[in-house]
């Protein structure tokens, strides 16, 4: 590996709240709890924090967190668009800020009551034009046609993929069954001890015919996750074994859209994931065979195919057979989301997958994969490779 081209930063702390359907407290409190837990995990204090990054669509304000937690001064703060697709973006910003000397200790967080306060999976009822800066301009071109949910938006490119490669909704069930199986042995997962069968998947109601059933969709969750990043040098003096950020990146490819990727040349090619993979593998000198765990962003079951293909674990169009052949199981060639992912653990918008990536490298996960050296985080419009120091 070309060590001189990878980052000299590490994740030194992770923290999270419980994952629920009704947290009973504000999103600001959830954020503070998760950040405090991450700092405690690292052995750092709020006064050590001088950088912060989150999502454009996180409802919290940096100033409120600084005032709540007693942070002395944020020298660096940033927000990343594209919702959960951008969830590895705060990691990339933290890495760049520290490597570039803009900050010494950067916190990334996401806090949401997206089940109890608002329904993330439900429809937009008003044509608001989206959330500026978040990549939601596509709503102008979707809502007047009754395409008003994440499931509806995603189903259009999913159906094209199904048509081209002869994939059916029943095929998707193998993804959901595996993720729910993983969640069933993860005590932090909402679906702990609640595995499903293929028959359960096929009996669940349609959300978008003939593409997604209920058990193809991620859940809606309340909760928060935070991570703490600092330099490798400082990391060596802290409480946890550091988890190195080998590289983290974002991608907004040509003619691509957030969620509604209808316009680029080959709709069946997940161009954002391809761009992230090219950057991550190119920068680190690693390839798919060097990755022991894939934390792949599962807003819908089919997305696992897209991430597997974009990151070179199988070829485009082979995702369904690859999954059916058992490759993503915990004992498969590329175990995917041992925490259960969003479908099984919780939907904290990609951030709980980053926390699981850290646990897998540390060797402390509930469903620990053996001999993990590198974990790939693939969120679509962002990604990262984490590894041992």
């Amino acid at each position, binding site marked *: 590996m070309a060590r001189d081209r990878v980052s000299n930063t590490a994740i030194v702390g992770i923290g999270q709240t419980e994952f629920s359907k009704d947290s009973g407290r504000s999103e600001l409190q959830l954020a503070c709890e998760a950040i405090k837990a991450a700092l405690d995990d690292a052995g750092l204090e709020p006064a050590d924090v001088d950088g912060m990054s989150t999502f454009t669509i996180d409802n919290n304000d940096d100033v409120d967190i600084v005032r709540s937690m007693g942070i002395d001064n944020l020298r660096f703060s940033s927000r990343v668009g594209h919702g959960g697709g951008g969830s590895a973006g705060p990691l990339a910003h933290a890495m760049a800020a520290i490597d570039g000397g803009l900050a010494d200790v950067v916190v990334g967080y996401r806090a949401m009551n997206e089940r109890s306060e608002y329904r993330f999976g439900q429809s937009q009822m008003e044509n608001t034009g989206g959330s500026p800066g978040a990549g939601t301009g596509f709503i102008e*071109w979707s809502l*007047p*046609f009754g395409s*008003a*949910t994440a499931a*509806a938006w995603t189903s259009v*490119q999913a*159906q094209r993929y199904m048509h081209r490669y002869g994939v059916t909704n029943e095929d998707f069930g193998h993804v959901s069954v595996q993720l729910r199986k993983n969640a069933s042995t993860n005590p932090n997962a909402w679906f702990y001890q609640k595995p499903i069968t293929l028959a359960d998947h096929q009996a669940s109601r349609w959300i*978008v*015919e003939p593409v997604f059933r209920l058990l193809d969709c991620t859940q809606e969750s309340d909760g928060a996750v935070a991570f703490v990043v600092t330099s490798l040098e400082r990391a060596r003096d802290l409480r946890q074994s550091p988890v190195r950020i080998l590289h983290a990146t974002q991608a907004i490819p040509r003619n691509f859209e957030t969620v509604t990727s209808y316009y680029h040349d080959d709709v069946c090619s997940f161009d954002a994931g391809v761009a992230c993979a090219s950057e991550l593998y190119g920068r680190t000198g690693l390839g798919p065979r060097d990755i022991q765990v894939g934390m792949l962003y599962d807003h819908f079951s089919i997305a696992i195919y897209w991430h597997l293909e974009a990151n070179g674990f199988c070829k485009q169009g082979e995702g369904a057979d690859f999954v059916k052949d058992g490759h993503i199981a915990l004992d498969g060639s590329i175990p995917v989301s041992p925490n259960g992912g969003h479908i099984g653990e919780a939907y904290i918008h990609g951030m709980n997958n980053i926390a699981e990536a850290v646990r897998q490298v540390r060797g402390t996960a509930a469903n620990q994969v053996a001999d993990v050296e590198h974990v790939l985080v693939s969120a679509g419009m962002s990604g990262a490779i984490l590894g041992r120091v």
Partner: protein
Amino acid sequence: MSETIARPAPRPTRNSAFFWEGCRQGVLLGQRCGECGVFRHPPRPMCPECQSLERQEVELSGRATLYSWAKPVHPQLPMFEAGTLVALVELEEGIRMLSNLCEIEESAIEIGMPLEVFFVETADDGAVHQFRPLRDR
């Protein structure tokens, strides 16, 4: 499809106003670069091929093929008829556009089938483009 349903009106921006006004006039307009002639959709001010700000709003043939489709069934939106089909169509001019597929039995849908445009009114005196199977001419 009934035209009396209070379908939400388009929300034009300065970049897209001409397109939605075209729908109100019953004309499907496409945006073409005034320099290199390449079509693009949704509308935006600069040509991604040659970076020209020259642009033309031209009437499209209204003929398309079905590129993909789906039927959102949950949650049922009160302002749309149950069973509304969302469709991504590819126009003769080479651009793709989201719309609805109408006047067809679901069992007859085939990706690649030829379609033609028509228009329906929305709430607030708006209008949007719709597609149905191409009729014999």
